[in-house]
């Protein structure tokens, strides 16, 4: 017993140290779940109110750019509406079945906290469970993909940005439909990397890259970026550097997209795996 006490007295710092580092490591290991824990939500609630105020002040400086972006998006949407009736007018359609036709619901949200300088970037938006935001919903900016919701509290959600080493997205070359996996290499916030495109495919600088919709998170055909340059990687594949169309440095208004048919798709896919 006395030996034990002596031991403890001698190494008490080391023990405290290892204990505290153990807690830190535990938190590191459970990094993605921790947003859901109640205490953290409480603390985040306090700090978010604070951050929201800072962000509001800052956003005044870029109001003009935001307005231009929104106006352009509005024009684009109006154009899409104009095109709509032509596609629908073929044949008879007596029942307007809104449940079956609509696959995606869009919710507009504001980014209130954002970072681009870490290796694992997240941003926070001002909508949460009460506004229908759920984990695994897609987030797009007015120009292209922005991220995926990874956690939500009643009024806020945390979104994993494209600029996160853990972010993976299935994307394809619009011109020929070959798809690969998009990820961020942690270097520059303007560029991402598209891999797994076979070398026999014709790739040109400036080609449009869009989402495939295979993952049931992003709708098909959302803009991702354009080909910046490409090089051969190993024997079979290209590594393509993509210039992202979303400007993460001035992310402000985002669109959260929920897929109404997601569970149906996933359940069916699960049957055959």
């Amino acid at each position: 017993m006395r030996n034990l006490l002596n031991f403890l007295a001698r190494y008490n710092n080391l023990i405290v140290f290892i204990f505290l580092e153990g807690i830190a490591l535990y938190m590191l290991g459970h990094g993605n779940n921790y947003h859901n824990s109640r205490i953290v939500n409480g603390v985040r609630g306090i700090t978010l109110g604070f951050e929201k105020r800072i962000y509001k002040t800052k956003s005044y400086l870029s109001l003009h750019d935001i307005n231009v972006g929104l106006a352009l998006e509005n024009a684009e949407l109006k154009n899409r509406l104009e095109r709509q009736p032509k596609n629908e007018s073929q044949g008879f359609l007596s029942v307007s079945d809104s449940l079956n036709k609509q696959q995606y619901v869009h919710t507009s949200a504001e980014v209130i906290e954002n970072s681009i300088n870490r290796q694992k970037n997240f941003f926070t938006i001002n909508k949460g469970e009460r506004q229908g935001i759920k984990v695994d919903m897609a987030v797009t900016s007015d120009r292209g993909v922005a991220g995926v919701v990874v956690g939500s509290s009643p009024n806020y959600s945390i979104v994993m940005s494209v600029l996160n080493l853990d972010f993976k997205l299935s994307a394809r070359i619009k011109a020929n439909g070959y798809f690969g996996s998009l990820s961020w290499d942690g270097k520059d916030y303007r560029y991402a990397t598209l891999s797994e495109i076979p070398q026999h495919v014709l790739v040109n600088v400036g080609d449009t890259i869009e989402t495939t919709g295979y993952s049931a998170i992003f709708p098909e055909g959302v803009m991702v970026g354009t080909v910046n340059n490409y090089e051969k990687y190993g024997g079979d594949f290209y590594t393509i550097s993509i210039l992202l169309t979303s400007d993460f440095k001035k992310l402000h208004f985002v669109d959260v997209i929920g897929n109404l048919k997601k569970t149906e798709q996933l359940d069916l896919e699960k049957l055959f795996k």
Partner: protein
Amino acid sequence: MINSVLRFGLIFILLILLQILLFNNIQFSGYVNPYVYIMFILLLPVEIPSWLLLVLSFATGLIIDFFSSSAGMHTFATVLAGFVRPYVLRVVSPRDGYESGDPSMSVYGFRWFLSYAILMVLIHHITLFYIEVFRFADFFRTMFRVILSTIFSVAFILLIEFYRKGR
């Protein structure tokens, strides 16, 4: 006693506010992320018991983690910095040894404070940046980030210290 608790409480709050409101918003090319809050660990009195130093480091890291939504990263790095501080103090010890009180620039001089700050910040930043990336694939690029950020952190810490000394 109460006086110094109040004083360090104030320094603590000021540094954390500075970190969250100012330095976390510096987004300069993705290579420079100064983490100035580590200065709190630097400034604690020499004679502080080690366990208290560790607990305070833990609290500092935890708060920064909460505010920058990075689970455990800052906690781990700051606790490590708190653990090695006595050894760093021994390595850089001035000729006449330490008196009790703050290890500040006004007492031990600029050169002593500079080497102390560089060592501590470097240890903290190396741990932090490598945990953040969590792989050795881009070893040299991460090292480059560590070195650049260390330069900026130390520069800001020196600025704050000069300001404290000047008062």
